[in-house]
C-alpha cells in the first residue's frame, strides 16, 4: 500500500500570553510521526485539548508546522504555499463538528456545496449545478432543494450538506473532525453509515477525529490515541480494543460506558486521578506519568519522570510506554 499522508516528527507550536517577554509557547502537537495509507480510515481519539484537531488541521496545512514534515501523496507540503498548495488542497477536504456553525446561513445549498468547485476548478462552472446535484444525491439530500438555506434543514441533513461540500471536488482525503458528535443517537448512526458507504464507493481515505470509541470502531482500520500532544499508541482497530498496550488507552476504554447493564456493572474501571495537566506545564519524562495507574502500581519507577518514551514497535502496533510489557500482569492484579 502507498502512503497518502506521511508525518515525520511533526511539531505544531502555539504561543499564548501577553507581551513578547511574557509570551510562552507549547507544543499542541509534539513530535508525531504517522502514516495513513491510500484507502485507509485512520481514527484519532483523545480527550479535549490533546491536540487531535490541531493534528488534523496541520495535515491540511491550516496550521503551519513548527518543525518536522508533512507529506501528501508523496509531495512534501510542509513549507508549500500559494498556488502549489492550492493545487494540493484540491485533494483534501474537511467535515466539521457543528452542523449549525459550519454552514453560512446566508448561502443557499447550491452556493455552499458549489464553493469548493468555484475555488478549485473555476473552468468547470458550466457543470457546477450538475456536480452539486451529484454530491447531494450521494449524501441522500433531495437535489431539488438546491435553492434552500441551511435553516430549512435538520441537524442531520445539515451534516449531510457539510459532507456533500467536502465531496464536491472529489477529494482523495477527508478529515472528519467530530463529524457525528453533535448529532442525536439515531441520526448519528445514519451519518456513520453514510461515511462508510461513501468510502466504499469513492475509495476515500479518512482521518476520523472523535472521542467516541464506538464510532471509530465502526469505521476505522487503525486507531491512534493522543495525550497532551503526543501519539501514545497506534494499533489496528481490533487489537486496540482487545489488547490495549498503553495504560492511558486502557483507562480510556474502561471509562467509556457500555449500553448493557450486566456487562457495564461487571466491568472493572481503571480510574485516572485528577485532570489532564496544562500543556504549558507538561510533565517531564512521560507526559502521562502524573496520572498513570501503571506507574503507581510499579512503585513509581523514576524512568517515567525523566525519560520521554519513544513510540516503539510492538508485534501489532506501536506504543509509547517504557513498561507496556508489564501492563497485562498489573492489570489483572488490580
Amino acid at each position, binding site marked *: 500500500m502507498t502512503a497518502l499522508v506521511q508525518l515525520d516528527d511533526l511539531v505544531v507550536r502555539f504561543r499564548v500570553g501577553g507581551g513578547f517577554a511574557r509570551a510562552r509557547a507549547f507544543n499542541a502537537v509534539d513530535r508525531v510521526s504517522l502514516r495513513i495509507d491510500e484507502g485507509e480510515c485512520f481514527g484519532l481519539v483523545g*480527550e*479535549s485539548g490533546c491536540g487531535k484537531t490541531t493534528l488534523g488541521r496541520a495535515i491540511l496545512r491550516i496550521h503551519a508546522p513548527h518543525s518536522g514534515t508533512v507529506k501528501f501523496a508523496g509531495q512534501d507540503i510542509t513549507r508549500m504555499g500559494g498556488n502549489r498548495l492550492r493545487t494540493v488542497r484540491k485533494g483534501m477536504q474537511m467535515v466539521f463538528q457543528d452542523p449549525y456553525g459550519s454552514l453560512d446561513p446566508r448561502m443557499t445549498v447550491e452556493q455552499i456545496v458549489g464553493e469548493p468547485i468555484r475555488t478549485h476548478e473555476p473552468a468547470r462552472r458550466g457543470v457546477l449545478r450538475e456536480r452539486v446535484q451529484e454530491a447531494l444525491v450521494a449524501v441522500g439530500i433531495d437535489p431539488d432543494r438546491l435553492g434552500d438555506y441551511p435553516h430549512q434543514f*435538520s*441537524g*442531520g*441533513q445539515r451534516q449531510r450538506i457539510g459532507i456533500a461540500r467536502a465531496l464536491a471536488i472529489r477529494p482523495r482525503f477527508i478529515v472528519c473532525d467530530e463529524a457525528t458528535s453533535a448529532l*442525536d*443517537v*439515531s*441520526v*448519528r*448512526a*445514519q451519518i*456513520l*453509515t453514510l461515511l462508510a458507504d461513501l468510502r466504499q464507493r469513492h475509495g476515500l481515505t479518512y482521518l476520523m477525529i472523535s*472521542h*467516541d*470509541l*464506538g*464510532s*471509530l*470502531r*465502526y469505521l476505522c482500520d487503525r486507531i491512534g490515541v493522543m495525550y497532551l500532544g503526543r501519539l501514545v499508541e497506534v494499533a489496528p*482497530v481490533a487489537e486496540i*480494543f482487545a489488547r490495549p498496550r498503553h495504560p492511558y488507552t486502557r*483507562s*480510556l*476504554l*474502561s*471509562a*467509556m*460506558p*457500555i*449500553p*448493557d*447493564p*450486566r*456487562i*457495564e*456493572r461487571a466491568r472493572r*474501571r481503571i*480510574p*485516572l486521578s*485528577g*485532570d*489532564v495537566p496544562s500543556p504549558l506545564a507538561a510533565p517531564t519524562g512521560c507526559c502521562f506519568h502524573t496520572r498513570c495507574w501503571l506507574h503507581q502500581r510499579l512503585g513509581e519507577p523514576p524512568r517515567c519522570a525523566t525519560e520521554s518514551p519513544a513510540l516503539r514497535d510492538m508485534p501489532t502496533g506501536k506504543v509509547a510506554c517504557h513498561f507496556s510489557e508489564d501492563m497485562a500482569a498489573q492489570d489483572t492484579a488490580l
Partner: protein
Amino acid sequence: MTEPLLRVRNLSVRFRVPGGMITAVDGVTLTLGRGQIVGLVGESGSGKSMTMLALARLVQTETGIVAADELTFDGQPVLSMSQRQLSALRGPGMGFIFQNPFNSLNPLLTVGRQISESLILHMGLSRKAALDRAIELLARVGIPDPHRRVQDFPHQFSGGMCQRAMIAMAIACEPKLILADEPTTALDVTIQAQILELLGGIVRETSSSILLVTHDLGIAASVCDHVHVMYAGQIVESAPVEPLFYDHRMPYTAGLLSSVPRFDGEGVPPLSFIPGRPPGPREFTDCCRFSARCAHRRDVCLARRPALSPRGTPDHLARCVATEPGGWLEAGL
C-alpha cells in the same frame, strides 16, 4: 411500602408561541422511590429536560403552563405551593446539577461563597460555619487541597472540578432529591467516570435519590435503577434497567439501542439506524408519534393514540399498540 419521594401523574408543559400553543411535555407519569437513581433518556427535543424543570417548578411562568393531575414531593403538593414554600422546598429538598458547569457558576463569587449561600439561607448556618462546611463538601466531592481551593474563583477550576463544585452545592443541604440534567455531557470520558462514581457514592451514603436526564444509554445502563425513555414529549417505555435493555417492548427503544456503535465484544456488528429524525413539538400528532419512523408500523398505529400500559409486570410500561396483548409484536421485539 413507604410513600415514594416523588409522584407525578399526567404532567404536561405547554408553551405559548406565535400562532398558538405547543405541548413540549405530554402526559408524563412517574414515581421515584427513595435512594434510587432514575433515568430520563431521550434525544434532543424529547422533553426530558423540560420534564425535570417542571417537577421543580422552574419553567418560566410567563410563557410556560405546567399542569398535572398530581405532583407531590415527599407528600407535599408542589403545584399549589407559593414562591416562599417553593424556595424552602428547593434548598433542603432538591439539589440541581446542570450540564454546563462553566455557565452555571457565578464567575464573580468564590466557589466557597457559592456553596455557603444555600447553607446560610436554608440551614441557618453562620458565615464561618458555612465556609467550614463548604470545605468539608469540597473534600467530599474529591477536590484536592479544599482549604485553599475554597477561596478560588470558578475560572481557576478545570471543567471536572467545576462540575464537582456544582455537585458540592447540590448536596450542601443534604437534599432528598438531586435533579441532574446531562451532568457529564460537557466532560471528557475519564472525568465522566469519576463524576458518575461520585454520584453513585452519594446515593449509597445519604439515600438521596437522583433523577438523571441523559441522552447516553451507556450512562443509563451504568448507574440507573429504573429508566424512562422519552420520545416527542411522551414517555414511551418505562422499566427497571434490566428489562429495559434486554426485554424492551417499544420499537423506539430497540432502535435506539441498535443505533449505538459498540466498542466491546468480538467483531464489528452491523449498525442499524432509525430513518428520519425525531419530530419537533410543532409536529406532534395524536397517533403513535414514532409511527412515521417505525419499521413495524401498521394502519392501526396511525388510527389511535396508544396508551402507556403495563407489559407483564406493573413497573414495565410501554406505549405501543404492537406489543399490547393481542398485538403483532406481543411475543417481544
